[in-house]
């Protein structure tokens, strides 16, 4: 899956640099971004939105974000109006809703922010109001 190039790539680059800097010294090696990955503990070990998306969200929303339909559906992320609100996504990740489990409870604040910022800047969408780990921390139940 190629990354979607958008005008806000530079901002994403800044975020990525910040994330890398924050991790330097504790993370000997960056896990691969989309190759299958297995966490070691009770929380997700993936670092960065791309790795989190590929190994967690994609289980249901699919690698290309098109969702899936069976007896009911996992919504497509492409063109999904719910992505407009990062706060809504934060609430979803912490509380779950319908078919969505509260996966944010197994992620750090930075991971929740990373994955929300990732889905809001991929799959044909490009919101330019990223959420920070501090925002996430404030929203954590």
């Amino acid at each position, binding site marked *: 899956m190629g990354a979607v190039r958008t005008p806000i790539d530079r901002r994403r680059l800044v975020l990525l640099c910040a994330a890398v800097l924050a991790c330097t010294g504790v993370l000997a090696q960056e896990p691969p971004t989309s190759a299958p990955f297995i966490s070691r503990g009770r929380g997700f070990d993936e670092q960065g939105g791309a790795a989190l998306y590929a190994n967690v969200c994609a289980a249901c929303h699919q690698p290309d974000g098109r969702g899936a339909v069976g007896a009911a559906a996992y919504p497509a992320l492409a063109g999904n109006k719910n992505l407009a609100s990062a706060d809504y996504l934060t609430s979803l990740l912490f509380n779950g809703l319908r*078919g969505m489990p509260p996966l944010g409870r197994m992620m750090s604040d930075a991971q929740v922010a990373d994955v929300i910022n990732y889905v809001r800047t991929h799959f044909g969408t490009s919101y330019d109001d990223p959420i920070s780990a501090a925002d996430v921390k404030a929203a954590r139940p």
Partner: protein
Amino acid sequence: MSDAASPPLTRRNLLTLIGASAGGTAMYQAMTSLGFAAESPYRGPIKLEGDPKGASVVILGAGLAGMTAAFELGRAGYKVRILEYNNRAGGRNWSLRGGDAYTELGGATQHCTFDDGLYLNPGPWRIPYHHYALLDYCRRFGVTLEPFIQLNHNAFLHSSKAFGGRPQRIREIKADFEGAIAELLAKATRQGALDDAVSKDDQAILIEALRAHGGLDKDFRYVASDESAEFRGYAKDPGGGLGAAPVNGEPIGMHDILTSRLWQGLQNFLSYDFQTTMFQPVGGMGRIGEAFARQLPNAIRYGAKVTGIRQDERGVTVAFEDLARDGTIEEARADWCVCALPLTILSQLPVEVSAPMKAAIDAVPYSSSVKFGLQFRRRFWEEDEHIFGGISYTDLPIRHISYPSAGYNSGGKGVLLGGYIWNGPNAYEFTAMSPAERIARALDDGAQIHPQYRSEFETGISVAWHRAPFTLGCAGEWTEETRRDHYDNLCQIDGRIVLAGEHASYIPAWQEGAILSALDAIARLHKRVVAA
């Protein structure tokens, strides 16, 4: 249903912890207060007395809850029909056998190529002896059961971080852990450390019990001895003829057992849900769903995808797509509706129920679970390692390897449950993998315990429950808070609709919960019908 090696702190695990640290009495008291300990309320076939006067019921979902409701309501004189999304009955009661194909969400299709008689139970796979309702239906419908081996003392406990990664026999860890505790307690007692708590007379009996129970020698030591060998087995088993004398083995030290954390695995054999005797149907768990369906000839409409549920004062109208006819919309009308759809499905449908029930339907996320079936050309676990049935527990992502509880010592092929992941990050990570990646990973993990995996593997299949098109998840995952806020609202009869399924029970993720939920729902429904 969870018995993972390193579980998150759920209520059930909390109970296990209380049991481990405070003893059985404390655990029973805690369990009673949390609503777990009472035996199944099932007291024999339900009696729905009174004439329903030709009332009709549409039932959504042909899993065990829906089929229980249909069978019993039909017997009581109701006109029943079931709408089922799949082209088979059973729902999560399911076995994958050679010749089956399974397409998961995302579109990947796996073709099961197991040999005849071999299978994977992707969902439920064992039945506790105290699940009376399920056992009664098996008896009434002629489903033959056989023992499911939960505890095999010769299976393994494995930690990738202890004992150099070498798997340890359950028998040795169990005997040595209990023996070491007995030795410590005997020492403390004899040194007077328990004088305030235990009378001198009782101390004498306690020491006698510890010696007998723990395999202590005459000096109250747990060491290589005839006494300990009776529990932990031998370094060299007794034989016949010359040179046949047994050799006692050296116990594993307390420190090594404690720091390995392998004692955690022993909890999987202590808790009420997993105590012997457990059962499985001969030929696969799916035999139960098949037997239920045989009791309901012509009542089940397959390939019917429910798209909406409306109700008025006189009845219920269910809209559904006929999947075989390109999604043609049809409607089913009945006086009442028993809805046994998983909440992951129901929550996404337009459904006319009260706001509190709708809030309850939306509030229960589903656990995530992944299972693997791996066929090997040789039953090496029996031939090489003398493991006949049972489960090995590991801290590797696959968590479990379960050996078939049938076909022992036959010399033929076998299918292992090559992994069972319940919740936690790994369940989602495995779900995100392709079927081929999942199998490759399960083989990598399993080969660390059984190196024969590499040469003996033939074919495998996996089911990741969040990709199951008919459930979108494994089972209802309640918390104390959601139980308090939503459970009663979920179970109420709402106008002409009542819900049933494992999610509407205090035995979530177990088939017994689905059946007891259905029996309770139809009993209340029937009362209302005959009172009208």
